[in-house]
């Protein structure tokens, strides 16, 4: 009964307005249909699909920012794509740091103690390969809406970026991307699968050797 009341009250005002407007109807006999026979325009041919898209996204324009606020580390350029810089012709390496994939508790972006060793390994590697960049890929299990998981996955990637910076890694070496729940590592609808999907994967961006 409570539900009925809330919904009735919420809707009735709108209906009054519309009902009054509707009273102007006379005995109309013919209704031409505006917009009929106008299907959604087809997508453009492949050659023009990318109109307006610059090849390398936005180039970095601002000087590096090294300010940290409340543990957060701002990104130092307006460009989100390190491939546009010195790594433009680089290659992706998904295997070197594969064993260091970091896992999270449900609905959390806190780095667990069990993951410390992995991140120390990653930090050591990056400090020894200053020309490489790291892409941290944040992922979630399926138990959140897409919009929510996009932000949660990004926060998970950022948590690792902060952690690495605290270990002395230059944060300009580290970029983040969230996939939300779109790229599960394991298919399945139970904790065994979910625990493998709440993760940060590491992809190295390695300059092409001349």
């Amino acid at each position, binding site marked *: 009964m409570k539900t009925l009341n*809330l919904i*009735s009250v919420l*809707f009735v005002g709108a209906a009054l307005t519309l009902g009054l407007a509707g009273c102007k109807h006379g005995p109309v*006999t013919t*209704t031409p249909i505006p*917009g009929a026979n106008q299907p959604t325009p087809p997508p453009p041919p492949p050659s023009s699909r990318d109109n307006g*898209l610059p090849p390398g996204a936005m180039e970095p324009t601002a000087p590096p920012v090294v300010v940290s606020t409340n543990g957060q580390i701002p990104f130092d350029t307006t460009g989100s794509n390190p491939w546009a810089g010195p790594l433009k012709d680089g290659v992706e390496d998904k295997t070197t740091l594969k064993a260091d994939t970091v896992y999270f508790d449900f609905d959390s972006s806190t780095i667990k103690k069990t993951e410390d060793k992995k991140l120390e390994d990653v930090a050591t590697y990056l400090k020894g390969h200053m020309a490489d960049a790291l892409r941290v890929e944040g992922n979630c299990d399926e138990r*959140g809406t*897409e919009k929510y998981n996009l*932000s949660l996955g990004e926060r998970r990637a950022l948590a690792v970026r902060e952690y690495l910076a605290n270990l002395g890694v230059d944060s300009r070496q580290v970029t983040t991307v969230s996939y939300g729940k779109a790229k599960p590592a394991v298919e399945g609808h139970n904790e065994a699968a979910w625990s493998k999907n709440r993760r940060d994967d590491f992809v190295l961006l390695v300059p092409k050797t001349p």
Partner: protein
Amino acid sequence: MKHSIQIILAFVFSCALHAQVPQHIDVDKRGDFTRIIPISISGFTGEADSVLKFDLSVLGLEATSADKADYLISGSQNASLEGRLQPTGSNSAAGNGFAPRVYSGGNTRSQAHAFADDIVKAIRGTPPIFHTKIAFCRKEGPNMELCVSDFDGQGVVQMTHDGTLVATPAWSPGGRHLFYTSWKSGYTQIFEHDTATGKRSVFAAYGGGNFNPSISPDGKKVAMILSKGGSPNLYVCDSDGSNLKQLTFERDEASSPTWSPDSQTICYVVHSGRASLRKISVSGGKPQLLPAGIGGNLTSPDWSPDGRMIIFTSGSGNFTLWITPAAGGEAEQLVAGEDPCWAPNSRTVIFTRQVNHNPVLSLLDVPTKHVKDVGQLSGSCSQPAWAR
């Protein structure tokens, strides 16, 4: 005109009843918003018949036999469609039937949609939605592509062919431009896509994540989530991308912006321990908690176009849709589902329903809680956005 005056009086009377003694619902048939109303449809065949039945069912008007129906819908179809609406029995006093009308031009589908719009306006009092569009994401192997179709899933056009992920489509008011999150660059960027010309451009590509755009109803502002400052937070800028302003300063994360109809307030989600709904002025300031009176994670809100309600998703896995007054108050549970989006009539909602772990787009008539799947769509479709 005499009929019109009677209708006005009936409405004023029913509203007065609601306002003063809402616990005693005793209204005439036209004011009975929360009831599934039986109707009878005769004289139509094939596409016209199926379109009428689908459309009317979406608004909680269910076809039955003539002797049980509150309204008789009859007519015929040739090159044009002719249809009339007759209330039956005691219901005929409502006076909201109409004499035969002729729907010409277009095709059978659009004629039937126009007739259904007239029937819904007469019985439910809500504005037309049967010629509107939706956008959604469709799974293509490991990727997602953006699609647009009629509200009922007919006439699907795939808008992107990037072979990557795409998410969170949002329409500009009027439904010409689509904004969405794209991974085409390898990172999240917000694209603006003109559906009339097919041209698109990068709308936001700041350092860090760029996702979840939402365009203000007046078309002047775009809200979105950026992590350029080190955490995913709510930002707003002008529709040309200029005048970027950070609105929230969460240590954890913000998500899911949705606008009030006057384009002055944004409702969004803050995750701090658990997810809750907040509201903030477009000019910034102190966020306000939107009290919903329930626990759990509250996510993916959508503000109704008439401004009265906010619908959102609750739960972690077993999602349910809830509705709460936009000013805050006790939330009411609707049905199982996630990621709701209002139709322009502020009554119908499109959302995602899990069927055997496969997402299906479905339509909800909020007052009656009647659910109707958009059955024409195949594959895994999610994240619907209704053009309005």
